[in-house]
């Protein structure tokens, strides 16, 4: 089978929680090596889309195709689950709760290698752990530390290294830089750009931060109340938003000279 054009695609994706429709008829495709952002506010359904893609929620309807294979129903058995893990990884928002506090960084990365690079022996794994640590900019002392001894930015580097250990084709970044200080966020954004160049991995970025979206992606979809309201090239959508909701989002971002305005008929 030839390489599929899209490394990750969803078609007619829908998720209901009881009477609430969280995600309604969402379609998109990320080309190999591409980077796509889903933008929206709380309740837009963007995180639910991410959770369905990595198998944390089961879609009510629709298809999710990663690396040419459907993953819209739960994996049957460990081998299938592992294969899916090797295709798509996720980095969560909160670096304080997404790592095991009792596990040193090297062990956390090694654990992923045991699962996803079973052909490597102990020495090769040790070398690979060091390589991944170097790629995300963690020094030897930090690699031996437990998460409690690391700062938020350092922990997020660990989470990225751990995701990369599975050599995924796609990394889902669910607000992965939102909790970081400005100076650290810039470092992690640069790191993600470098990782993409070095490994050819694709990104699905879930974010409310339009500036971060511009920095990291080429394509964007804007979601509101579960539906896609606008899509296109990131620069084009941000420079010249067409839909009223996108225009409101864009106008709400504080930039130099920005003045907050009351909305007419706001809730």
């Amino acid at each position, binding site marked *: 089978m030839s390489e599929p054009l899209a490394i990750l695609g969803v078609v007619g994706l829908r998720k209901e929680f009881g009477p609430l429709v969280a995600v309604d008829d969402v379609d998109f495709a990320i080309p190999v090596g591409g980077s796509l952002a889903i933008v929206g506010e709380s309740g837009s359904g963007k995180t639910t889309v991410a959770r369905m893609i990595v198998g944390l929620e089961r879609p009510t309807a629709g298809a999710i195709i990663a690396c040419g294979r459907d993953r819209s129903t739960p994996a049957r058995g460990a081998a299938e689950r592992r294969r899916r893990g090797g295709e798509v990884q996720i980095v969560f928002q909160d670096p304080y709760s997404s790592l095991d506090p009792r596990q040193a960084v090297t062990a956390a990365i090694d654990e992923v290698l045991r699962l996803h690079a079973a052909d490597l022996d102990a020495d090769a794994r040790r070398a690979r752990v060091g390589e991944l640590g170097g790629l995300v900019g963690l020094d030897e002392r930090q690699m031996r530390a437990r998460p409690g001894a690391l700062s938020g930015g350092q922990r997020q580097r660990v989470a990225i290294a751990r995701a990369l250990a599975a050599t995924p084709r796609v990394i889902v970044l669910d607000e992965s830089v939102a909790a970081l200080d400005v100076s650290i966020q810039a470092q992690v*954004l640069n790191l993600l750009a470098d990782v993409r160049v070095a490994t050819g991995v694709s990104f699905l970025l879930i974010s409310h931060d339009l500036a971060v979206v511009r920095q990291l992606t080429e394509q964007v979809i804007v979601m509101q109340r579960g539906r896609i309201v606008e899509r296109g090239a990131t620069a084009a959508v941000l420079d010249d938003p067409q839909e009223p909701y996108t225009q409101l989002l864009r106008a*709400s971002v504080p930039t130099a000279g*920005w003045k907050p305005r009351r909305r007419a008929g706001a809730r």
Partner: protein
Amino acid sequence: MTALLEIEQLGVDLAVEGAQRTVLRDVSLTIGAGEAVGLVGESGSGKSMTARAVDRLLPARATVRGAIRFDGRDVLALRGAALRDYRGEVAFVFQDARAHTNPVRTIGDFMTETLRTQRKLRRPEARRRAVALLAEVGIEDGERRLGQHPHELSGGMLQRVMIATALLTEPRLLLADEPTTALDVTTQAEVMAILDDLRRDRELALLFITHDLELAGAVCDRTAVMYAGQIVEQRASHLLHDDPLHPYTAGLVAARPSISSTSPRLAAIPGRPLSAFEAPEGCAFAPRCGHADEVCVATRPDVATIDEGAARCHHAVALRGRLAEAFRV
């Protein structure tokens, strides 16, 4: 403009893991009546601690040096009823509105408690005032809201309730600690607009704490930038972006991705933000600064006044005009 709040050489040590650790060092800041001042910094820079010190909300066993005066009164000496009255004049709005409300009490109970218990107002009058203020923050059906519980309100709605509550005692200074950080961006714009309107209508002084330079600039005449427990720069907000005086400010501006242009890489500041107690002997920013030399490593810089602004940097005068450029890639 007469000074309403004067913070002079404020230093704070807190008990952390059994040792007294410095979190604030030589913080001096003045806010005039009706003036809005932004306090910007990254985590651990001491911006929240400064506001808490002003409202006397520091944890027990904190050691405080320096002086805080409000309208001529010595804030650090206030006790009992005088402290309660002071807190009516200096109100606080916190970041996490939900954590600062009691989930089992109604909005009405929460809003009118101070008026009833301290100002001895009768319940109907207290409720009438609460409803009037809710209308001012854009909540029209105040009477119904008073009967609701916090979980029935959205985050943006609850933060507006918090702002209305803070204003019930008719304060002269509002300390707002990241009041919109937990909100969606469109809600943030709305809440900021309300805060800005109220402040102007009531000639209320504002200390607005945020990590977002641009957000501070939108509502504040003047912005102070904090790093490692010190104020490193004070400047008219509209000048911070293009004519910063301190390398750290220039670095913060450059590190933030832009919404209107794409660049392959950001000018990241190396290293991580330090707390005051971790800061080295000389300039606290020296280890991360591209302009640092032996002087910066050896001696702690004093505040240099430049063009109505001030910077805590040995080389502020020499670097003037080159900082914004140097970080641009």
